[in-house]
């Protein structure tokens, strides 16, 4: 009997070991095994509610404002019915020694008591709308040399298709928007200075690799003297040779020439040279570039031939097309968000350039501003296979210079260095705690 008794004792020992082992080896509940990721749900809920800054606006309201009620309704409506919440907003003013003291200013919850040990929390720090963030743009450069921006601001020239503006006001706006991206920005204030720029002697600076923006719309200023004399060819009685020379300069000095609106180089303007000449619409100081004050399209054709270093020939064939409404390209939309320039994604184009200019003049689209429609492009920067680039925004008047700015930034892609948020006394901390009904 002793052996039987011994075995029974062994069984008792094993049973005790099993029971004790089972008591310590507690398996988690199925809810803990596979629960909702409440932290991510809380975070995405806060982000969704702040999609159009409504959460940011509400948390700075006084506690009696009805928007708190709207927030509470939205919060309860957006969460699954088995999820309970507790949302607390803290004021986060900075003390004199720089430490942050969080003070609760508003709490809302649909739970009677605490949310349980398994609840999760997410928080967002919301700055007040009057906080200013510092953004430092990278200076646009090429071959490690910062580029210079030239904006045509000639006082002795008139613009066309810039209705409602003057070239000078556009130049001032462009200066404000683009000068942070350039080491040096120079306003070319007279056609005489433009002549110096074309000679590469303006201010004693080498203008190689620079950007030149023509703010005069469909007209281009022409300096008196050499360029007027050389630009006019008696054989075709036109100034197309002037824009041919411009094309040659863009190629020689590797400039990027920007046309902000309409048909580029359609008119030539100088209020002294053409003081008695008008553009057939009553604007004196300019004329169409082509034969006997007509043939406006010859200016662009000659420019492109010059850019491609082809021999000069007079050609006043109209090459643009009327596309109607065009849409920003995906890259333009993305860059518009990045640079904080938000023109309407839909614009009207009546002077879109044909894609055939790429093969004819050895150009390639370096950045597409508007989606191509058929075989026409409403706005893009074209890069020559050798040197020089040409940005043509073939939109109808009135010009939106933000499009021109966007096209340049797309082409050069400068980086924006955003400052870290360090403002104090203007933030509120929103903490959303979520739990599952039944605790856990």
């Amino acid at each position, binding site marked *: 009997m002793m052996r039987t008794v011994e075995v029974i004792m062994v069984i008792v020992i094993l049973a005790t070991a099993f029971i004790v082992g089972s008591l310590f080896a507690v398996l988690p509940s199925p809810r803990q095994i596979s629960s909702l990721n409440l932290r991510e749900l809380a975070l995405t809920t806060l982000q969704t509610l702040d999609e159009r800054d409504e959460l940011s606006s509400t948390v700075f309201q006084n506690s009696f404002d009805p928007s708190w009620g709207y927030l509470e309704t939205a919060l309860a409506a957006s969460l699954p019915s088995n999820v309970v919440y507790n949302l607390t907003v803290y004021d986060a003013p900075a003390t004199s020694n720089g430490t942050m003291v969080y003070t609760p200013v508003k709490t809302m919850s649909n739970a009677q008591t605490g949310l349980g040990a398994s609840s999760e929390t997410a928080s967002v720090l919301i700055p007040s709308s009057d906080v200013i963030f510092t953004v430092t743009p990278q200076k646009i450069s090429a071959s490690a040399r910062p580029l210079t921006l030239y904006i045509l601001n000639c006082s002795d020239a008139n613009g066309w298709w810039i209705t409602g503006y003057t070239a000078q006001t556009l130049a001032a706006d462009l200066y404000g928007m683009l000068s942070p991206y350039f080491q040096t920005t120079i306003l070319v204030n007279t056609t005489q200075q433009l002549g110096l720029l074309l000679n590469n002697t303006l201010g004693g600076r080498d203008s190689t690799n620079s950007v030149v923006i023509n703010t005069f719309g469909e007209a281009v200023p022409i300096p008196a003297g050499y360029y007027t004399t050389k630009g006019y060819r008696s054989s075709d009685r036109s100034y197309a040779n002037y824009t041919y020379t411009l094309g040659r300069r863009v190629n020689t000095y590797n400039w990027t020439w920007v046309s902000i609106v309409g048909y580029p180089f359609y008119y030539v303007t100088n209020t002294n040279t053409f003081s008695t000449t008008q553009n057939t619409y009553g604007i004196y100081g300019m004329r169409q570039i082509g034969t006997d004050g007509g043939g406006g399209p010859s200016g662009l054709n000659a420019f492109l031939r010059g850019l491609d270093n082809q021999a000069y020939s007079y050609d006043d064939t109209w090459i643009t097309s009327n596309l109607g409404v065009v849409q920003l390209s995906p890259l333009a939309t993305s860059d518009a968000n990045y640079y904080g320039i938000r023109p309407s994604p839909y614009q009207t184009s009546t002077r879109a350039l044909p894609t055939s200019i790429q093969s004819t003049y050895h150009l390639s689209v370096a950045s597409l501003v508007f989606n*191509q429609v058929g075989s026409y492009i409403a706005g893009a920067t074209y890069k020559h296979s050798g040197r020089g680039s040409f940005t043509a925004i073939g939109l109808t008047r009135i010009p939106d210079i933000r499009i021109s700015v966007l096209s340049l930034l797309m082409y050069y892609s400068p980086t924006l260095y955003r400052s870290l948020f360090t403002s104090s006394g203007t933030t509120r901390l929103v903490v959303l705690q979520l739990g599952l009904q039944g605790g856990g």
Partner: protein
Amino acid sequence: MPGATIDHLISATLFLVAIVLFISLFSQNIQAALLYQRNHQISVKASDLLDAISLNTGYPTYWGASSATPTSFGLQDPNARGYHLSPFSLMRLTSSTGAPVYYPKTGLWYSNVTMAPGGFLLVPYAACVNYTTSTQLLGVNGSYGFQLTVNPILRISLTELRASPLQIGVNVIGPGLPLANAYVSYNLIFTDSSQKQYPIFRIYSGDARTYANGSAILDFPSITGTQNAYSLIVNAHLGGLYGTGFFERQYIDDRFIVPMVKSFDNGNGTATILLAHSYNVPPLDKTTPAAAIFYNATFLVLATDAALHPVLIGNGTVADKVVNGNGDPYGQILIPNTNPGILVVTFSYGNNYGISLLPWGIGNLAVSLTYGPNSSVKDWVATDVRQVVVGGVSYQIKIALWSLAGYQVQGSRWVF
């Protein structure tokens, strides 16, 4: 001596039985622990996979609005970042709920995202990213199965309370409760019966607030009679939640226009939409020759002022006709492919009028989508959910994930 032998036999038998019993009991505990660990790993994988899908645009970045097959799978909106999903990428997922539609005029099968009355989203399978491809791109092919469900947070139901003058009831509810005091803005697209053929439309816009029960009433005193068709698109928002709903009244028999996606990207910023005669589309699929349906197609975008604005492209509004026979089998229209909008097709047949809508981007008409096989028949399914924004509309995306590895995923702890 016999006593000792019996003692031996009893003790040995007891000992063996006890050993077998306790080995079984201990192994049950260990097996259950391993099982729990594996199931927990599925849960973690579900959360990771949902983030991988929601926070990655895929590659090419704008694959949703193109005809490209992605080489990396993700649904994030490349223009917005964060938990914003691309309304176009979602359109290119093969719907697993709607019955596939075969259109004999093109010889193609179409993924049926929705064929709600008046609102259509039919995408050719060839242009869709199927489930198998996405599992391969996500690196879970053969190891995990999943189902994605994308649903708008707010449900906006609309009912016609009175036909003449027109009165519409609006009801706005979320998953938890009705949305009281919500701001409601609406656009009523109303066919103009003065044009017998190629009917044009007018838009009536306005706004309202919901009552405590989430309902509101919209009155249109100038719209009388019952002979005109309309589509009502309602947007509601409160406290950062945004939703959309639509409702239609058709005054036409079983002849109507069915818009289908033909291509997502023509290479010039446009997509092609095909406009089919309903007689050629299941469930009708009639061979009886019928008179032509005359239509007018316009692409509308919802601007920040909550109003619908037409976008002209190519020749602008396209007016044409379709028949179910050999001539004019279907129409085609080009729309811009990178901006969400709604293609509105107003049509007429005799004195009957109707409107068909195609949302370009699933957020515009708050379309729901289910992608992947049915999870309800799987043994152990882990789920996770995120709040996201699709085209400015608040959505929830839910993943259900299960293991395909073949090990036991369910078990009982006690066998005795």
